[in-house]
């Protein structure tokens, strides 16, 4: 793995100039401070299924307000308030952010322009192939376009600012009069501390006496929700698609910026929500409880006695 990473780094130096993972971290931190507003087109394309959306976005001070009207949400710093709903969620974190996984290397590409503004290309490579290509606005460090590729080099997700200005709407601060429901981290998650290169960062209580375990590799992230028993997932979604991974059957719901995978293991109902690309998703699912059912007697016993 280290040899592959080293070779990739050499290719990067030759083709595109030196860069380190620290520089990506620097960029991500600068992007957090960026001040901008506009409209972002985001889409996910997977097995011929398309999910595309346009988000109005205002960004400053590490907070992003997206959407409009009743679909308005303000997100950042581990907190989110969604307009139009009574419930606001918040998570807080007692750790420093995990570093970029060693499987990634970073390369600076050529200078470019986006919406007439000077910008730079940053490539994040995995095993010598581009995993994410980001176009960064030079003035603000805002990500004005991104492309995420799957393991075969096919475009999986893309986003592009279609309107962009260096300004913010003062109304963005209005969400501050809301109270948030705090989510305290639990001491254990009952799930592996690492899944296919993704590290378990923390875990929280989830609906129906379940748990939410949050994983990241410093670039992508996902939450695994688990609850005891079996769930009729089809009853709460009408836009799911069957998904075969490693020879097992799952349901998936594809949205512009994320994918949700739903299944039942013999004793646990599971849902995975995240932005990871399909090949990473397959690797992660292989290491989680697999879909399946107990025999009739075991199910009856569990239903009657709860264990």
């Amino acid at each position, binding site marked *: 793995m280290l040899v592959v990473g080293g070779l990739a780094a050499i290719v990067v130096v030759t083709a595109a100039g030196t860069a380190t993972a620290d520089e990506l971290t*620097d*960029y*991500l*931190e600068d*992007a957090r*401070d960026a*001040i901008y507003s506009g409209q972002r087109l985001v889409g996910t394309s997977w097995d011929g299924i398309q999910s*595309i*959306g346009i*988000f109005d976005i205002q960004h*400053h*001070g*590490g907070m992003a307000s*997206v*959407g409009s009207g009743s679909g308005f*949400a303000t*997100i*950042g*710093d*581990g*907190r*989110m308030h*969604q307009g139009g709903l009574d*419930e*606001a*969620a*918040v998570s*807080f*974190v007692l*750790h420093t*952010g995990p570093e970029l996984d060693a499987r990634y290397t970073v390369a600076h590409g050529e200078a470019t322009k986006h919406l007439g503004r000077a910008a730079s290309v940053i490539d994040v490579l995995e095993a010598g192939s581009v995993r994410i290509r980001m176009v960064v606005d030079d*003035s603000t460090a805002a*990500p004005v376009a991104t492309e995420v590729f799957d393991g075969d080099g096919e475009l999986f997700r893309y986003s592009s600012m279609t309107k962009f*200005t*260096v300004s*913010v709407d*003062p109304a963005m*601060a209005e969400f501050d*009069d809301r109270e948030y429901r705090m989510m*305290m981290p639990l001491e254990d998650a009952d799930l592996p501390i690492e899944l296919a290169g993704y590290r378990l960062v923390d875990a929280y209580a*989830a*609906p*129906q006496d379940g748990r*939410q375990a*949050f994983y990241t590799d410093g670039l992508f992230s996902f939450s695994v929700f688990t*609850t005891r028993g*079996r769930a*009729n997932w089809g*009853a*709460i*979604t009408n836009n799911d698609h069957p998904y075969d991974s490693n020879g097992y059957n799952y349901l998936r719901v594809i*949205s*512009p*910026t*994320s994918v*949700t995978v739903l299944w039942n293991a013999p004793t646990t109902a599971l*849902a995975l929500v*995240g*932005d990871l690309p399909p090949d990473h998703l397959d690797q992660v699912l292989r290491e989680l409880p697999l879909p399946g059912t107990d025999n*009739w007697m075991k199910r009856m016993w569990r239903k009657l006695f709860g264990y």
Partner: protein
Amino acid sequence: MARLISDPDARGELFSAYLDGQLTTDEVVVVSDLLDGDEELIREFRSLQEVRRSLRLLPEFEVPANLLPDGHLGDRLSAYLDGELVTLEHRRVTRHLVDCPDCRVELQELDRARIAVRSLPGVDTTSTGEIPVTPAARHTRRYVAAGIGAAAVAAALVVGLAVGNGDEPAFSLDDLGTRHVARASAEPGFAVFPASVEVSFP
């Protein structure tokens, strides 16, 4: 405000305050105006970001608690746990918690105490001062009805186990998405938005 734009020191303070999350929204608008198209000011802002990053990489020395002023969070921990803090204050408290093991312990103790209180049986303090109790189950023995009911439940259970696909979850996919997006937004470079807020297809 014009003085801020022309005075480099004051401008530096303004940028620094922005990066510390200490500006009002109106002041943020001033910062965005300054950064809009003025290459010199943009360079100034970006170099300040670099300096701050460099400072964060300096080795940290642990100062004995008894030599520090009383900078702990105190009552703000309770407000934090209640989700009552505005964004700037929330950010300061979170940053303090990352660095302060004492406050983390205090927060966890506070949370445990609150969970214990919440788990107490509900008490209705009405004007009578009486504590309401759930009426005891009546012991009317209706063997025939109970037998029929039990048989029906058993039959339904057997059918459910044979053909059922689990219980309908008492939450929505939006709920799971909200929880993930909120948590993921603590990470730098997060780009996951809740599906429910998209505007429209073009």
